[in-house]
């Protein structure tokens, strides 16, 4: 295990700021029944950053994302978002705090059309500036614009993934949580989705927390990264540091450079 020190970022904009992070997770423990899935996780996401979390299957990455959203609840520790303690908040109230999520497995509404799915995404702000946001996500994913009236469930996997991200964007989030957006997608589509994430971050200043199996691309894209092993964060550092770390290379990048 290498001792990548906390946050000497290669993007000075964030390293210099000493303010409190947008999202901070402190000592969070989550259980499924009696089984412990998160064994005390500490993690920060600063405003304007892309932070990625990598780890093997079953490490607890999705669990952490869901815990941030209050389902399941953290049994110990605290989660603070924009200065508010959201540890005990119900999921639907968390979703109203400019915090959006594209969960694992996409979870779009299969029998509803793309348009209706996007409307559901805008539900938190009651459909204000819906037309504008629709235009924006259609510009990001022209594919969706072509298929606004197709049922979500009949779209291809990649299109569904685009829809899941677009739906999350409809609420104009300040922090976007993405769980494995590249899952099962062709390399070209992965590239497209990652470039959208980059655009959102650089142009709109959106903060992104990205869970990925595709460690190489994710670490290249992210300002900072964390590595999770069986419910604990074992390493953190800038994307570059982690990419160059021999143990990360051995565990997550072997043959992964596609």
């Amino acid at each position, binding site marked *: 295990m290498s001792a990548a020190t906390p946050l000497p970022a290669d993007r000075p904009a964030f390293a210099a700021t000493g303010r409190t992070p947008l999202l901070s997770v402190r000592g969070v423990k989550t259980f499924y029944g009696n089984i412990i899935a998160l064994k005390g996780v500490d993690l920060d996401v600063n405003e304007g950053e892309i932070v990625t979390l990598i780890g093997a299957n079953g490490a607890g990455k999705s669990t952490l994302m869901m815990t941030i*959203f209050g*389902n399941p609840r953290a049994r110990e520790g605290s989660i603070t978002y924009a200065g508010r303690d959201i540890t005990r908040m*119900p*999921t*639907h*109230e968390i*979703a*109203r705090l400019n915090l959006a*999520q594209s*969960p694992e497995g996409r*979870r*779009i*509404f*299969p*029998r*509803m*059309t793309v*348009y*209706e799915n996007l*409307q*559901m*995404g805008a*539900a*938190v702000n*009651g*459909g204000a500036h819906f037309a504008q946001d629709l235009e924006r996500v259609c510009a990001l994913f022209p594919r969706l*614009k*072509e*298929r*606004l*009236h*197709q*049922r979500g469930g*009949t779209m*291809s996997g990649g299109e569904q993934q685009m829809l899941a991200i677009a*739906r999350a964007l409809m*609420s104009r989030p300040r922090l976007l949580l993405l769980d494995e957006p590249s899952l099962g997608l062709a390399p070209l589509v992965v590239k497209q989705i990652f470039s959208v994430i980059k655009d959102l971050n650089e142009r709109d200043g959106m903060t992104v927390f990205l869970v990925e199996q595709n460690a190489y691309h994710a670490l290249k894209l992210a300002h900072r990264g964390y590595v999770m092993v069986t419910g604990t964060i074992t390493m953190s550092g800038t994307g570059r540091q982690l990419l160059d770390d021999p143990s990360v290379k051995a565990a997550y990048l072997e043959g992964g450079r596609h």
Partner: protein
Amino acid sequence: MSAPAPALAAAPAARPALDLQAILKDALLFALVTFGLCVPVVAYRTDLSSTSALDLTPRWGLVAILCGLVFLARLAQRLILASRDARRALTPSPRQATEAVDATPNAAQSVSRFGLPLFLGVALTFPLLAALGTGGLSESRYWIDLGILILTYVMLGWGLNIVVGLAGLLDLGYVAFYAVGAYSYALLSTTFGLSFWICLPLAGLFAALWGMILGFPVLRLRGDYLAIVTLAFGEIIRLVLINWSDFSGGAAGISSIPRITFFGLPFTADEDGFAASLGIPFSPMHRVVFLYYLILVLALITNLVTLRLRRLPIGRAWEALREDEIACRSLGINTTNTKLTAFALGAMFGGFAGSFFAVRQSFVSPESFNFLESAIILAIVVLGGMGSQIGVAIAAVAMVGGPELLRNLDFLKPVFGEHFDPNEYRLLLFGLAMVVMMIWRPRGLISERSPSVVLKERKAISGSLVKEGHG
């Protein structure tokens, strides 16, 4: 890579040559099973002889006919399915990717386009049609009563459709709310002398309240578990009505409930009755026709409210809830409130229908609200295709009207002999029809969900697709 290609090309060509042997075998198997079932049930007719011993009359001819029928039916089904599959294999399904993009309306939309005006037209003119068909208003009583019955179930189906079809909450105890509505009117009118027009909204309110009361404990349940609890709830309400005699009159029920008035004018032959006030000759049919239009209006209100709500955030939240509860919550939807409103609204319409039931019968007893009622209403929703309004209406007509029409099966007498009683076979045939229906359309009559928003850009989009060659 070249090996699979010929196989792929050969597959459609090989299809039309049906595997007749397998199909015949399959049909024979079905006939055999039918035979097995027939031996204990049909083969011998038991009659009490004069010495009160059992007389057995063999009926092997009937068994043979039944087995033959099943054989032929299965054969036909397999052949039709096989030829359909062959056709599908030759032409790639045009629905796969383009279903909603192309501008042709889907089944739900085309049915609504032509079916809805037709349905509405028939419903509006039904008493007139019945009177013309039978040769007089009084003679048409049977048909108008049947119409009222069907419309009651249409309304109940539409009410339950909110809970089951839209919100996806399987409710087997819907009849409880029907009962709450009926007893609300019965009790309020007999004890406080309140008129129907005041009791109707109150009954809806009470039922909605009970919907919430049921909703709270079952918020965390889904699917089978929810079904069991709602089933129990329905039974509890019925048992309370039976056993709490002081309150509800017990198993004997409540009788002489005041009849409907024309907004205050009673349908009697008196001076201040409806007919006298209008200066027309009195007829008992006035009340029946009025009841018919009352339930029609109530049913249409249910439909309009549902259609309207589907376009509002709450309706969309119901549907999203049906599809994925977790996704709903992470999109900021309060699933608790969403479920409770679905239960409450569905129950409210059940309550309206219940108070209509009470005012029409002027008698209520717990026996009218048993589980079979819930099952029929649920069957209407499922047969209609969950969530489809017009499908539910068609299913209600079939489910309620069907058994009635089957009373007139006298023409089968020459086939089955003189002591064939259509009434005995009515439910059997009806069950058969339902089985056939579920094979033919396993997801209900109208299974396609029609989108709640259809934009005008639709055509433009498909046009641009054609240009780019995506279609």
